């Protein structure tokens, strides 16, 4: 599939150079936080969506958008934005299919992150 990359190389490179000499690796820390934070948020989003909780969908989508944007997960970010807009507009009609798309995109990002971590 063409379009934006799963992970933007430029964003990953800019995170990589944030580590000061002798300090713990910032990129590794950020990716670790992403992997622990995002599934939890996606679960909250799924629950809010099923319950028709507009405020909950908006909050979770907003937070996911922040996480995705910061590591350059551009395709995940695009899905989060759509969900965020739905939550903001108060219309959850198409949210279920977007939540599925979110899950699929997340698995791609996760695989890419694992590849990055093993490659170093």
């Amino acid at each position, binding site marked *: 599939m063409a379009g934006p990359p799963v992970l933007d190389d430029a*964003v990953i490179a*800019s*995170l990589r150079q*944030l*580590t*000061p000499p002798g300090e713990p690796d*910032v990129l590794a*820390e*950020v990716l670790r*936080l*992403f992997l622990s*934070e995002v599934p939890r948020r996606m679960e909250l989003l799924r629950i809010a969506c099923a319950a028709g909780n507009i405020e909950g969908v908006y*909050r979770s989508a*907003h*937070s996911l*958008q*922040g*996480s995705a*944007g*910061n*590591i350059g997960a551009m395709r995940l970010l695009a899905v989060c934005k759509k969900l965020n807009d739905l939550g903001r507009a108060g219309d959850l009609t198409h949210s279920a299919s977007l939540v599925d798309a979110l899950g699929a995109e997340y698995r791609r990002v996760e695989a890419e992150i694992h590849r990055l971590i093993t490659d170093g």
Partner: protein
Amino acid sequence: MIPLQVLVADDEPVSRTVVGAMLKKAGYPVIFANDGEQAWQKIDSHDPPAIALLDWEMPGLQGPEVVQKIRDRKVQTPTYVILLTSRDSSADIVEGLRAGADDYVTKPANEDELVARVNVGARVVQLQTALADRVTSLEEALANVKALQTLLPMCAYCKSIRNDQNYWEKVETYFTQHSNVSFTHSYCPACYEHYVRPELEALEGARAAQERHNRR
């Protein structure tokens, strides 16, 4: 100069960590808050951060609400506030600035832009601190001037001055206490003729008399 402390308040850990790392790399000591309440606690303390980056949307207190509380705090050098927001419509930005934020940065933050804006904040805080110090020293100087603008009761004969506690003080003592003036003692030509010369001559006479006595 000691680098100014920066608070990063964001409930989203990935963003909080990235922004914190950017600022640490730029040389700023960074402290963190996970929500608006925590951010407010750190700002409303005896050692508040000079600059705060506040996420617009946090659970509990939101960014603009924290800003409002900071503005109500009425201190000499208030925390410089930059709102972090993923919203980028101009209406939202205007709302944030109206609430009292000094600046805003859109998320995800661009490192160069973020650091440049925090540097502007640091410059504003340093100017404000310097200005506040200057005002304080001018106020002290003004208080001294005022103390010397009153009508001073002075003895017409010995020139002593009656102080606020109703005691008579020497002119030197009074002015040393009420101003930055200090005295060195000397004599004018008229007083030399009137007091000093006769005293010197008397001493000389006494010395000559003593010598005559010794010779005898």
